[in-house]
């Protein structure tokens, strides 16, 4: 399978002179590769086989070892699934880059990106993992700056580059600490050796892993790169980055916290839950204030990572109390949401890509009325919007329900601090659900409904056949994951049961196709009943009304305009739609509004044009990254004093270091 990706990457590079050939070769190889990935991971997940191989390298400590256990298989399945549909979409979508940018390069990095993600979630050696992690970071960096003539892309890429490497530094610290404790870089040895490690080391590992992988997962306040980097890439790559790449951070958190480190401390879980609450709430609030369709979706990824962390955090809390079956429930909720988010976020990004390709703008205010011009894209985007807003009967609702249930179980029977954090997490999850619905009413309503607000929107055409096939398949997947959630949950129990800390533990739920309930009878939901209920009720209502009003006519006429001439300028804008919610949360969001008025003359009584720019102050820039940047620059300035440029002085430095080292050796022995 990896060979297929390699062939895809190199073949695309060789064919870079011929756009069409490079596109077809690169994406077909990606389709075949991810299809193979689907089969392998599916086999590993459903049959319980654990394919593994290991090749020693000539370098010490580095071994190319891959082992697909249940957790790896699950993440590999999610990656392959999304990559499969994104590649189908790309076959047609990439065509609008012909002649503008090199298609061969795109195919090369795209295949490298998918392959490295799959290695990241299957590698069993920390150094090999880091190599794959770095390839993934670099490949995605080059995909972010793919539209290299856009300065915004370059800026986004640079920020991403810096942030991801700062994160990698923390990951290295975590691995080195584990190496010190165990004397090996193999995950299996970590697992055996970490039991003896001191609490201090474990806490240090927890914190560095949280920061290191938190950067990749986009946990606030480490998220600054995400909203600018994801939208800058081509849309099918954005779908992969937002839907799947950030999940590699989640994967490693699960791997380290629940598999490698034995036992967990209470504060770990609470810290994850607090981080999750903040990320989910702030993520959706920033999304509300965003008018760039792809940036809006990127902020929603932050929100959904927050929801996943709520499930994972509750799992860690339960695990620290020894309530392993509830911990399995929390983890199952987190994993279920991981998979669901991958499907609907990929769908939404693909839909956004089609809209952008049709209108040539990412500004949501320039859309409108696209439901008539692109009816199928609109329908698929609506499915994605409903799923991400956790509306029943789709899959997003089920995983949020499961997360809620895990959190509900935590409210009863803990000490006050833990209890309060659980209650506030429930509150923030409920609020997040409501705000996400508000945001997607905005995103869908302003984009697809009412009348076109610009000439570009009037000229939009439905997207090609292959993109629609990919989006239709993802929509079906979303509905299917909702309908068959009981069966999916049963499969997930295998994954949670394979974790070292939860080995063989039964999850605290009873999962059947008919309904899913908790063992203590606290909650029960039946997704098939919801599907049938809503569909049957709608059909009955429609039939009854049709019979009752069969003699009545339905005419069309203009929208009531109060006697004026109704223009698209009078429709509500995205800014206007979300402004009230933003004004309410001004304490956190710090909205800005700059008013510029040009006057006809010096009298300042007759304005010619007035412009109001509404935005948000970048508080992370001002309060976290700017001081950090200043500090680094200052330190660097101090360090330059050492660098005189005189070669004699450098030789003196080497000499002094040698003497110092000799003294050090002496002290040691």
């Amino acid at each position, binding site marked *: 399978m990896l060979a297929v990706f390699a062939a895809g990457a190199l073949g695309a590079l060789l064919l870079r002179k011929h756009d069409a050939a490079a596109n077809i070769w690169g994406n077909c190889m990606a389709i075949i590769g991810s299809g193979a990935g689907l089969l392998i991971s599916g086999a590993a997940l459903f049959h319980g086989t654990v394919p593994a191989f290991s090749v020693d390298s000539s370098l010490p400590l580095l071994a190319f070892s891959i082992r697909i256990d249940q957790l790896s298989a699950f993440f590999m399945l999610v990656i392959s699934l999304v990559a499969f549909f994104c590649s189908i979409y790309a076959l047609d979508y990439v065509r609008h880059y012909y002649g503008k940018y090199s298609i061969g390069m795109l195919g090369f990095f795209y295949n490298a990106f998918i392959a490295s993600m799959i290695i990241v979630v299957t590698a069993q050696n920390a150094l090999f993992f880091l190599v794959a992690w770095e390839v993934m970071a670099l490949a995605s960096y080059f995909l972010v700056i793919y539209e290299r003539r856009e300065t915004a892309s370059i800026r986004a890429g640079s920020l991403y580059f810096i942030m991801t490497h700062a994160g990698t530094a923390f990951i290295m610290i975590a691995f080195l600490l584990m190496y010190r404790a165990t004397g090996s870089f193999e995950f299996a040895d970590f697992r055996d050796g970490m039991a003896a490690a001191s609490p201090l080391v474990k806490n240090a590992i927890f914190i560095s892993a949280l920061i290191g992988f938190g950067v990749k997962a986009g946990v606030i306040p480490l998220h600054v790169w995400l909203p600018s980097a994801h939208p800058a890439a081509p849309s099918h790559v954005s779908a992969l980055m937002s839907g799947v790449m950030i999940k590699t951070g989640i994967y490693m958190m699960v791997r380290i916290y629940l598999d490698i480190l034995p036992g967990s401390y209470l504060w770990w879980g609470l810290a994850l839950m607090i981080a999750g609450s903040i990320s989910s709430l702030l993520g959706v609030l920033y999304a509300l204030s965003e008018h760039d369709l792809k940036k809006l979706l990127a902020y929603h990824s932050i929100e959904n990572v927050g929801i996943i962390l709520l499930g994972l955090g509750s799992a860690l809390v339960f695990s620290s109390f020894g309530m392993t079956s509830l911990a399995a429930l929390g983890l199952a909720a987190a994993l279920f949401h991981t998979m669901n988010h991958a499907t609907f976020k990929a769908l939404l990004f693909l839909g956004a890509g089609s809209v952008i390709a049709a209108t040539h703008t990412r500004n949501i205010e320039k859309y409108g009325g696209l439901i008539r011009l692109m009816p199928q894209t609109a329908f698929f985007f609506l499915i994605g919007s409903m799923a991400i807003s956790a509306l029943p009967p789709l899959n997003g609702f089920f995983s949020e*329900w499961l997360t809620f249930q895990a959190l509900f179980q935590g409210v009863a029977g803990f000490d006050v601090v833990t209890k309060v954090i659980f209650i506030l997490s429930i509150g923030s999850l409920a609020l997040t659900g409501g705000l996400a619905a508000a945001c997607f009413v905005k995103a869908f309503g302003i984009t697809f409904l009412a009348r076109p607000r610009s000439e570009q929107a009037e000229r939009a055409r439905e997207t090609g056949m292959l993109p629609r096939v990919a989006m239709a398949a993802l929509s079906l997947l979303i509905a299917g994951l909702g309908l068959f959630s009981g069966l999916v949950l049963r499969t997930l129990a295998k994954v949670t049961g394979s974790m070292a800390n939860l080995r063989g533990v039964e999850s605290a739920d009873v999962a059947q196709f008919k309904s899913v309930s908790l063992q203590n009878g606290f909650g029960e939901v039946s997704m098939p009943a919801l599907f049938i209920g809503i569909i049957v009720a709608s059909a009955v209502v429609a039939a009854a009304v049709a019979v009752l009003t069969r003699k009545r006519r339905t005419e069309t006429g203009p929208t009531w305009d109060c006697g004026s001439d109704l223009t698209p300028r009078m429709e509500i804008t995205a800014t206007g739609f979300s402004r009230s919610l933003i004004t309410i949360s001004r304490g956190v969001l710090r909205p800005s509004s700059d008013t510029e008025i040009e006057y006809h003359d010096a009298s300042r009584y007759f304005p010619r044009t007035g412009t109001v720019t509404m935005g948000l102050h970048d508080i992370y820039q001002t309060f976290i990254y700017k001081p950090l940047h200043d500090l680094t620059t200052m330190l660097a300035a101090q360090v330059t004093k050492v660098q005189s440029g005189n070669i004699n002085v450098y030789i003196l430095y080497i000499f002094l270091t040698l003497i110092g080292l000799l003294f050090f050796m002496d002290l040691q022995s």
Partner: protein
Amino acid sequence: MNMAAIPYWLLQILLIPALSPLFIGVTRRIKARFQNRRGASVFQPYRDFWKLFHKDEIISEDASWIFRVAPYLIFAVTLVIGASIPLVSTGLSNTLTGDLLVVVYLIALGTFFLALAGIDTGSAFGGFGSSREMMVAALTEGGLVLSLLTLALISKSANLTAISANIGSLSFPSFTPIILAFISFSIALLAETCRYPFDNPSTHLELTMIHEAMILEYSGKRLALMEWASANKYLIFIALGANLFFPRGIADSLELIPVILALAVFAGKASLFCIAIAVLESSIAKLRIFRLPDLLFTSFVISVIAIGLVN
């Protein structure tokens, strides 16, 4: 399910749409009395719906299929909710869709399509109505979930029918959290059913309307469905308030006499809610829209305290 329960299930499903116009009529009638008017008959809403179903319909040429489908879907969702909540007997236990989160998110599903329909015609009013509605709905959800969760924690089940049965059987009900949760729920009730101080159900003034703004472009049968669905939602929230927080009088079996008695008690309790809402609407002013979050936040905090008191 045994065959004998089928008539009761039919009653359960049809009760909300059958009675909801009546309680809208009752509320209007009481409000009219407060305004020194005689007011229309309590059956006027039924006549209005009948009239609207017999009228031709005009749909905006800018409207898409969302606008056309939304009324059916929204009405259907209220039917599903009506079948999921305790109404007259806890013997009709719906374990499939009776979870409190299912009901809260089904309500959100209706709101989602209502707001989309508001934007769809490109009218300035509809868009603003949708924006306000989503603002209120988003902020209400926290208080609503937590207030119902208080009851769920007391009765150790999140199933609404089970909650009703358990709260009713408490020999000495843990009173304080229930009362606090009820206060929190009442605020959510007023917000979700478009009542004072959140929305004015009888205005068409662009500065104040929320719900009416979204359905402004509807006419004929679809307007009837929208209004009727809104009435259903009103009765659903009243039923939740009456049967979850004060479940006395609800039948616990499926026999004819207790169920008829329970129906009478339910009508009485619902009328009391209507009177309370009418008194409230006649005695307070509508709040400025940016003061509403304060009230909704209060609802949230009160229910957090209520959960804190559950042990």
